[in-house]
């Protein structure tokens, strides 16, 4: 707070650097900064450079053009589509689950949260095979549905988009539930009572009071699962068919089978850019949510 008058940015930065606290802060941050530079920034810059080079080492945009056309484009679109479906499904399920948990007594709520989160300490591979056992033609689910003579059973629940989305949604669920649970616990229930006192029915209260109050949380949870889904690799490979190839698998294939490092790099950069755009949006939504929270606390 030493600079009270609006100063030039340069002057302000110099003033900030002069402060002992800032210098001390920079010093303690140094190990992390170096760590990130070596293991994060350098490889990304390397990837970027790779994606812009042709076979002779000259500059080209060929790989990007390649990424955004033909089969590569359709894989990219599949990735976006599956991510969106996952975000939607985990949002709906997560909302119901989080709502139920937020209405429980604290002890039961804690237990329920453990139940939701615990499976995710198990390796992704094991979990995925668990689903394959459950969802197969002769899996528990289809057997059960056949036993009660559900028309159309057995259903094809594996090696198609349904299978992939079931798997990815399951992975995303703890994130959305945790996020939404936090937001829901923050809603002042007395506001709902206030609406009821004016004669609002349950549906109106839900639509006009509750939903707007948790909306920022819904938006961030949805975006978060979308972003995290973009990089899925194991689940679509094991639970999807050829039409569910996602971009991470494509990159892997190009590197390990086709040795097309430059193409893989360009796809990686595109994926990264989409992720960054999502994160940016998340931040915007997050700050909106923060101000909403401030409001309901006032």
């Amino acid at each position, binding site marked *: 707070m030493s600079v009270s008058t609006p100063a030039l940015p340069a002057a302000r930065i110099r003033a900030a650097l002069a402060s002992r606290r800032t210098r001390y802060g920079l010093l303690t941050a140094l190990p992390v900064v170096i760590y990130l530079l070596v293991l994060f920034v350098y490889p990304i810059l390397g990837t970027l450079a790779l994606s812009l080079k042709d076979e002779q080492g000259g500059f080209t945009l060929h790989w990007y053009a390649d990424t955004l056309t033909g089969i590569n484009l359709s894989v990219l679109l599949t990735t976006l589509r599956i991510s969106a479906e996952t975000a939607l499904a985990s949002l709906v399920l997560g909302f119901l689950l989080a709502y139920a948990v937020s209405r429980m007594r604290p002890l039961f709520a804690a237990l329920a949260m453990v139940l939701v989160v615990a499976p995710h300490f198990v390796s992704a591979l094991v979990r995925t095979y668990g689903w394959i056992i459950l969802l197969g033609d002769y899996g528990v689910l289809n057997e059960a549905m056949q036993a009660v003579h559900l028309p159309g059973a057995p259903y094809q629940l594996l090696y198609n988009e349904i299978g992939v989305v079931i798997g990815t949604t399951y992975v995303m669920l703890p994130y959305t539930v945790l996020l939404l649970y936090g937001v829901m616990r923050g809603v002042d229930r007395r506001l709902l009572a206030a609406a009821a*006192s004016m004669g609002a029915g349950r549906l109106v209260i839900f639509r006009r009071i509750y939903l707007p109050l948790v909306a920022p949380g819904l938006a961030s949870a949805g975006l978060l699962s979308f972003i995290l889904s973009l990089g899925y690799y194991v689940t679509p490979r094991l639970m999807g068919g050829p039409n569910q190839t996602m971009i991470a698998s494509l990159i892997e294939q190009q590197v390990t089978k086709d040795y097309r490092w430059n193409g893989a790099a360009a796809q990686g950069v595109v994926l990264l850019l989409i992720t960054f755009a999502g994160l940016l949006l998340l931040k915007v939504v997050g700050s909106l949510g923060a101000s909403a929270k401030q409001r309901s606390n006032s």
Partner: protein
Amino acid sequence: MTDLGVATPTVAGAGDKPAAATGKSLSVVALRKTYGPMVAVEDASMEIAAGEFVTFLGSSGSGKTTTLMMIAGFVEPDSGTITVGGRDVTRLDPQKRNLGFVFQQYLLFPHMTVAENIAFPLQLRGVPKDEIRRRVFETLDLVGLSGFGNRKPRQLSGGQQQRVALCRALVYRPPVILMDEPLGALDKKLRDQLQTEIKKIQRELGLTVIYVTHDQEEALVLSDRIAVMRDGRIDQFGTPRELFERPRTPFVADFLGAANFLSGRVEHHTDEHTLVRLDTGGLLRARQHALAKGAPVSVAVQPGRLDVCAPADAFCSGTVQSVTYVGTLVRVVVNVGANCSIRLEVSARNAPQVGERVGITADPDNINLFAAESAG
């Protein structure tokens, strides 16, 4: 019958005609609420007529909010019944009771503007848009907040939020409005002004209002009747005058009248009076009370009902300790014995001097006696 809240938009229409008595009677019988071992409200009963202004007066934690919440339907009573306009609503959901509620904590909807907050109950009742706009504007104007309609609640001060909360309950003119310290956060001037407005609206529309406060002056100004609450019980329910002149318990005498308390024993009864021998020695003449001869009593008399006189005519006397001028009245403290002083409010013309020896007298009719056991 238009008493069904949401489903019947006619309720709002009915409120449009001023001077039509829209209030409803309300009765509460033997209401009780406990939280674990704690008894929050015990045996609360009262009959409130349509169009009556009733205040719950009591210190913090005496069960005022809890009683109000039970009437509104937010807290389920352990036992007892609540009837609004002759209809038993004890087990009815809050949204079906068609009451208005002003919450102690305002509870404005944070995601709506001030105007949207106030419009909300009108929208629920299907009031046309133009009329909503007009009524929101009128109501905001009434509480001195015109021009604040587009703000969000968080951009208002506590007192402003409280006024919006008041608007939100008044705007749809429910037949019964429950208000939990709706003016608690306001300064004296604004509070006086809004008291007048609330009273005016209530009178004009004939609304039934139950009002909670711990400010006795506010209760006296507004109420047709006051229920004095203590430790979850209603000590007395009556007109301000009844409470003031005929308090049923020492607590009521103290809480409303800030009474002086003296102790003594019943000496004997005459045809019209009960005579009490005070511990300070004097003989006090009080109006007739049904108390046994020799029974220990507690004497309560309000400062304004006492006067100074010659020591010879007094029921007790002492030296004047302090004299404070408050306008046309003076507050006098007279020391009448070891650690015992009496507060008086007398006309400034009769003001004694500090250090002067004076007697104290009172009209026997203004003296209340309580059996000493209940003088806890």
